[in-house]
């Protein structure tokens, strides 16, 4: 089981975005904004960072005349996030054992 700490998920907004995308097939920009209560600029910066890393895929489309940007997690993103989760769990388990 791969376990590694990924700096990309150190920021809480990126961590939340990835958590949401792990359990939702796709999620759009405005829904992210509402759920997490962040500003447009802040959210866009972090989404771009995840996109650059190849962790998420972006799809732009139109609903009527309104543009909509939706996001999905990529294969690499899923792998990286799972490894990150495993790492967190390991650290927690080690701490538990040490304190016994």
């Amino acid at each position, binding site marked *: 089981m791969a376990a590694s700490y990924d700096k990309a998920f150190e920021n*809480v907004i990126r961590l939340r975005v990835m958590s949401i995308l792990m359990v939702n097939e796709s999620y759009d920009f405005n829904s992210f904004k509402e759920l997490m209560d962040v500003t447009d600029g802040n959210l866009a910066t972090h989404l771009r960072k995840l996109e650059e890393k190849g962790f998420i895929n972006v799809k732009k489309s139109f609903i009527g005349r309104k543009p909509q940007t939706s996001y999905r997690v990529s294969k690499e993103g899923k792998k990286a996030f799972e490894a990150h989760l495993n790492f*967190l769990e390991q650290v927690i388990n080690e701490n538990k054992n040490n304190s016994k």
Partner: protein
Amino acid sequence: MTNPADDLQEIKAMMAKSTRFLSLSGSSGVLIGIYASIAAWLAYTWLYPEGFIEELNNWLNPEDLFPRFLILATGLIVLTLGTAYFLSRLRSKKNAEQIWSPAGRRFLSALFLPLVVGGLTIVAQLYAENYTFIPGTMLIFYGLALLNAAKFTVGTIRNLGMIQVLLGLFSHFFPELGLLFWWLGFGLTHIFYGAIMYFKYEK
């Protein structure tokens, strides 16, 4: 590095919040159950003005009662949906959750698809002037709607759905007691479940 336990907590919270609709209100369940009980009592006095008898169809002239029942049903639906919407909105404000979030949308579409099919089934029964199984059909489709939507919300909706489906089946086997089963399902069960949800999640 941040605290791993906090991070895990954050991940879990986001997964739950983004997939489940949290703002269903228990108090609306109680109110809806009370409306349904009043409606059932009205229907009882119209259908059995001389007290309960088993053979409804022998003496009943449905044409006389049809307009009254149509008004009653419409009023009940409007009151019920209005109350559910209004109280869910109040709760969603408290939870800082949007009703029209992806989770809310999924919950509502899972709930309404079986309800629309059930509604059309009832229209067909009305059209055929066969009123015997209408209470049972309402219970079964409502129960299936709840079962279908249960995975998109928290709480005991799944059990509520099972109870409604069972009552609907009973109602098909004992159609002369249809109104009683309808009241047990839409009235009593709602009051009971609404109260449980209220004390569990809203107190």
